[in-house]
């Protein structure tokens, strides 16, 4: 990550193409590489570098925690600026936390948690409320209209 090398057009094409999916077959890299008009070994080497340098957080499956029988929710806490970091650490100490961001609103700490079983969501949120002494608001999804997080680079 220390080495700053800009992405070239091929890197960008790889990122754009592979956010939409990766082939499943005997030679998936060769198949994807053909579409990108590069060689199989070039694609593998570039993916390796994009992962090493931190442009990609992962290369693999995205699971649906709920389809797998688990629990998933978005939750938020209102915390003073001076305590924000300490509370974020308390929240992150739970391995179920997937994302955790501050946001510019009185309700300012927003995090996503995924659990193995649905009932663990309430357990973890209640532990966080106890540990922080703060109210934890749970915002489970009631309806999903769209999920297609793909960014063109």
């Amino acid at each position: 990550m220390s080495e700053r090398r800009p992405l070239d057009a091929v890197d960008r094409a790889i990122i754009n193409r592979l956010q939409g999916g990766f082939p499943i077959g005997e030679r998936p890299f060769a198949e994807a590489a053909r579409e990108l008009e590069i060689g199989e070994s070039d694609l593998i080497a570039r993916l390796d570098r994009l992962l090493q340098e931190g442009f990609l957080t992962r290369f693999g499956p995205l699971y649906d925690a709920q389809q797998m029988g688990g629990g998933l929710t978005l939750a938020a806490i209102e915390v003073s600026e001076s305590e924000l970091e300490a509370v974020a650490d308390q929240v992150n100490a739970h391995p179920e936390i997937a994302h955790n961001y501050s946001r510019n609103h009185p309700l300012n700490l927003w995090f996503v948690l995924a659990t193995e079983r649905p009932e663990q969501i309430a357990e973890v949120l209640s532990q966080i409320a106890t540990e922080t002494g703060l109210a934890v608001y749970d915002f489970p999804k009631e309806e999903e209209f769209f999920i297609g997080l793909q960014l063109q680079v």
Partner: protein
Amino acid sequence: MKTAANLALAAPSRNALDAIDQRLIAVIQGGLPLVSRPYQEIARRIGTSEAEVITRLWRMLSEDTIKRLGVVVRHRKLGYRANAMVVWDVPDETVDALGYRLRRFDFITLCYQRPRRLPEWSYNLFCMIHGRDRAKVLARVDELVERCRLQDTPHEVLFSGRCFKQRGAVYQLPAEAL
């Protein structure tokens, strides 16, 4: 706390995952091997055939157990520094209509209905917009207001500040499945 029994009990109501599925998920969640025949390599690690791995991955994708296979970007590092959660207070009767309308805007990356938490929180429709800077994101929000006639719909734009954690949801595999 995390046992095979828990998972097995939880799974049948959704998509039943057998022991091979569980091993497969555990092996690939850290990432696909960067070799010419990754599914053969995965098969070797879990003691099955390449064809079996391919068949099971197709099935899990078609059942939505795996939403997709591919790359996940670190959006900030790629220049998407403004990440906004835009929340709307929409009458319950029209939230579906607006949700389906918003999904047609290609700059919206996620859109969910979530519960209000009155009196502190009155918003029930949440969508995400990622942009290179805040001004661009705010221009998108203006565009939504204009095109969906949301001038009278209360809304707020919550930009992300510090990222305290970002990782994919990790599937907890029962130890005995390995």
